[in-house]
């Protein structure tokens, strides 16, 4: 493309072409955040479960705070790699999804810190919050596997109440695997399939 004048017809064609090129399907690359947070939570759950079971020391619950650390590093690296070659454009839906997760993230952090000050069952609350975020994301991008995973996550928030002891930490990790990792891989697969 250069700095040259166009005919009226060519102008309209150019506008249409640029708008079409900029409008991409929302599943493209959207699986990465689900995979980063899903795997981070799953592996931290395994660590917490293992250390508490092995030592009986409940101070290992502080390991939960590794999740925001791993997640933030993963998101920064992913964003840097993604924008390095193809650049980045933010559309309205991406901004909405970003805001949904910002609110869910802040609520989760407050709930986690609160659980160290006042004793309450934080794992079901986390599942409910993440389920809400996942379902809202799925509804926004109109992608069924993400919507279903979100509602499964919300419904499964009762499971930690049913299971006694440290087993609920393991169940929490497995639910995360189903709620975030599975739809994350499906989203990425759909995105890749488009370019084959």
């Amino acid at each position, binding site marked *: 493309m250069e700095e040259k004048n166009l005919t009226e017809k060519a102008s309209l064609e150019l506008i249409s072409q640029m*708008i079409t090129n900029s409008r991409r399907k929302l599943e493209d690359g959207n699986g990465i955040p689900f995979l980063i947070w899903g795997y981070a939570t799953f592996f931290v759950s395994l660590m917490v479960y293992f250390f508490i079971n092995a030592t009986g020391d409940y101070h290992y619950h502080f390991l939960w705070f590794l999740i925001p650390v791993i997640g933030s590093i993963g998101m920064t690296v992913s964003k840097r790699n993604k924008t390095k070659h193809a650049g980045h*454009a933010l559309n309205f839906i991406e901004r909405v999804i970003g805001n949904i997760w910002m609110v869910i993230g802040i609520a989760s952090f407050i709930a986690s810190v609160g659980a160290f000050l006042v004793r309450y069952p934080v794992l079901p609350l986390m599942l409910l919050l993440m389920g809400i975020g996942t379902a809202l994301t799925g509804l926004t991008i109109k992608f069924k596997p993400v919507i279903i995973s979100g509602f499964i996550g919300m419904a499964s928030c009762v499971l930690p109440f049913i299971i006694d002891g440290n087993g609920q930490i393991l169940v929490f990790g497995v639910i995360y695997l189903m709620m975030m990792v599975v739809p994350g891989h499906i989203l990425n697969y759909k995105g890749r399939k488009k370019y084959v």
Partner: protein
Amino acid sequence: MFKELNPLLHSELRLGIMSILISVEEADFVYIREKTGATAGNISVQIEKLSEAGYIEISKGFLGKRTRTVCKITEKGVTAFEEYVEALKSYLDIKSR
């Protein structure tokens, strides 16, 4: 009656940049370069012209160690773009009669 075509928008690269920015909330320099296929130097000159006209806002930041230039269309830019499309329609309507 022909409406006058805005000369600032009636250029291939500037119109391409404005068409990208009208369809997203903001786009960085690399994205615009990828979509238009133009050289970095040419894009810099054109976004500067669009910015001077008040059609776009340019903000510079950092992503890691790299500088990142982000462009965003303004209200004035949206109005100018809409008027340009209306003017184009008037040309095409009259020619197709």
